[in-house]
Structure formats: C-alpha cells, structure tokens
C-alpha cells in the first residue's frame, strides 16, 4: 500500500513539488526501500536525459519570413458560405400551394367521401353526422374515476369562487 502511495509521488519528489509532509514521508520510505529507491533513480536518469537533450533554434532567415507574414493581412476566418436568399415570389408560391392543398383536403374530408378512401370512423357512443360544436358540448364518454374526481373538484372550486364574489 505504502509502495503505491510513494510511487505516485516519486516523480514530484524529484522536482521538489510535494508538500513538506508528503516529501518527508517519501524520503523516509525511499531510505529503507531499495525497490522504490531504484525506481526513483531510474526516473532521475530519464529526467536527466531530457534535460540534456539538444536545444534548437530557427534558421536565421526565419525572422525575415515572419516579418513578411506579420505585414500581410490576416486571412479571414473560415465561415460557412452564406445561404442564397430565395426570391420573394417562391415563398408566396409555396404559401399559396399549401393553402390550396389545405382547402382541397378540407373539402374532400368534410364534404364528401370519395371512393377509395375510408370514411371517418365515428367515436363510440357518439351518433354519426354530428358537427364539431356538438361534439364539444357532449358529456365526456367513460372517463376514468380519477379524471372524474378532478373535474368535480374543479367545478366545486369554481362554484365556491363564484360564491365568494
């Protein structure tokens, strides 16, 4: 358990980037654990190899090239191509078409039942050939008890509010 805790902190302990108490605990453990001491030593070697790695520099002409690019205007940010505006008459035409389709479907649906189309099915307990207004005026058919209770409560509320006024 201690090995795992220490191993996770070996690298930071090399860099002196641990809180003092954790640093002390790691040092104590490493002093008596050859395995963790060996691991830290190999981490130290890896760090030293990177520290000793060659440094590099850009070629001498790079500044001139950079300066030329600095003078040039920045390329515009890439944006999606703007959508072409449709002429107004296409919108008007589409709207007229939609209205015509709606009118035809209303005419066919309410007035006639063309052959090949199924006639609309009347709901249960509702006589056929009723208008929409009549349907609204009818009592709800076979409501569940909970909905009935809600309706009763609402009606009671409305009544009492009316009485208060």
């Amino acid at each position, binding site marked *: 358990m201690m090995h795992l805790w220490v191993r996770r902190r070996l690298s930071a302990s090399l860099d002196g980037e641990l809180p003092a108490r954790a640093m002390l605990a790691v040092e104590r453990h490493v002093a008596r654990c050859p395995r963790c001491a060996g691991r830290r030593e190999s*981490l130290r070697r890896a760090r030293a190899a990177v520290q000793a*790695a*060659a440094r590099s520099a850009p070629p001498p002409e790079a500044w001139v090239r950079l300066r030329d690019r600095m003078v040039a205007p920045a390329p515009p940010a890439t944006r999606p191509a703007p959508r072409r505006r449709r002429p107004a008459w296409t919108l008007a035409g589409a709207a007229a078409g939609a209205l015509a389709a709606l009118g035809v479907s209303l005419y066919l649906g309410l007035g006639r039942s063309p052959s090949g189309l199924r006639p609309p099915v009347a709901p249960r307990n509702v006589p056929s050939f009723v208008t929409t207004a009549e349907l609204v005026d009818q009592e709800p058919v076979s409501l569940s008890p909970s909905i009935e209770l809600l309706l009763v409560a609402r009606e009671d509320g409305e009544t009492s509010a009316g009485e208060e006024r």
Partner: protein
Amino acid sequence: MAVKDVPRERLVRCIEGDQDAFAPIYEQFKGTMHTLAYHMLGNRADADEATQEAFLAAWRGLGAFRFESGFGTWLYRMGVNVCLERLQREARRRALRNGHGAGLARAAEAAARAEAEGPGADVRAALATLDPAYRACIILRDLEGLSYQEVAEALGVPVGTVRSRIARGREALRAALRDWEGAGA
C-alpha cells in the same frame, strides 16, 4: 528557471502594431519556442513551421493578451497549441488514409523520424512515443525548467493534472529509454 517575461511597455507597442518592438521578443523566445516545437513534433522542418505559426498567432492575438498572466507562459501556450493542432491534423490525415491503428502508426513514424536526426535522437524518439499531452508537460518542465504552477498556466490545466501527467510521462519515458538502450546494446 522561471519563465522569462517582457516589459509591459514593449507589449503595448506591439499591440499598437509596432513590428520593431516585436523583434526583441522574437529574439528572446525563439530558442525556447523552437526547442519546444522540435521535441513536440520530432523533426526540424515541422519545428521551423510551427515556430513561425506560434509567433504569428501571438502577434495577431496580442490584443487579447491579459496582463494578469505572464507573457512567457501565454506564448508557451500558443506554441503548445500550434504543435497539438499539427499533430491532430496529421493524425486525422493518417486516419483517413489508414483507417484504425492510426495512433500507433503516428507514434511509430514520429519515433522513426526522430531517430534519423543527429545527437540526442534516443531522447527524441522516446519523447515521440509519449501521449502529446504528457510530452508537452515533460518538455516544459524538464527542458524549459518551468515549475508545475507555470506548466499548469501555460497549458490551462490544474496543477494536479500537471503532476500526474509528469509522473506518468516520466514512467513511460523511463520504459522507452530502457527499450532503446536494450535495442542499442
């Protein structure tokens, strides 16, 4: 070694468009930026291009620089971002060409390209096998000498993340260097 910084007046002149004021900044940071790019990307030609891109991005983005943070860490962030974008572009191109397994191919190729170039090739090849996020932390810490706090600021991540990335990166580096020594023996 702490991150080198730039006088505020010079930065203000740069923001106002004075290119001559940018020349000493370039001189001051060109080595560190190129070294960062060289070890991030594994070869000199890509490092040359990435260094140019990073300085150009810095010049064009100076208007957005907030003086609360150090200019050096801000510039490092530009450099790391440019390198990561290049690596991602390369990975996408390779993925389109090769399908799955592109990540491995990329690492292998980066290692191979690093091998081919001069002294210290073993370290560059070992670095090339690391995840780029770990690689950036290791380079900034061990090569540029930044503290964990400065690395965190440069990369825009919490210090705890830097600590764990450095720990994992060094473990992987240790293994890669051991393999390299084993292969060379």
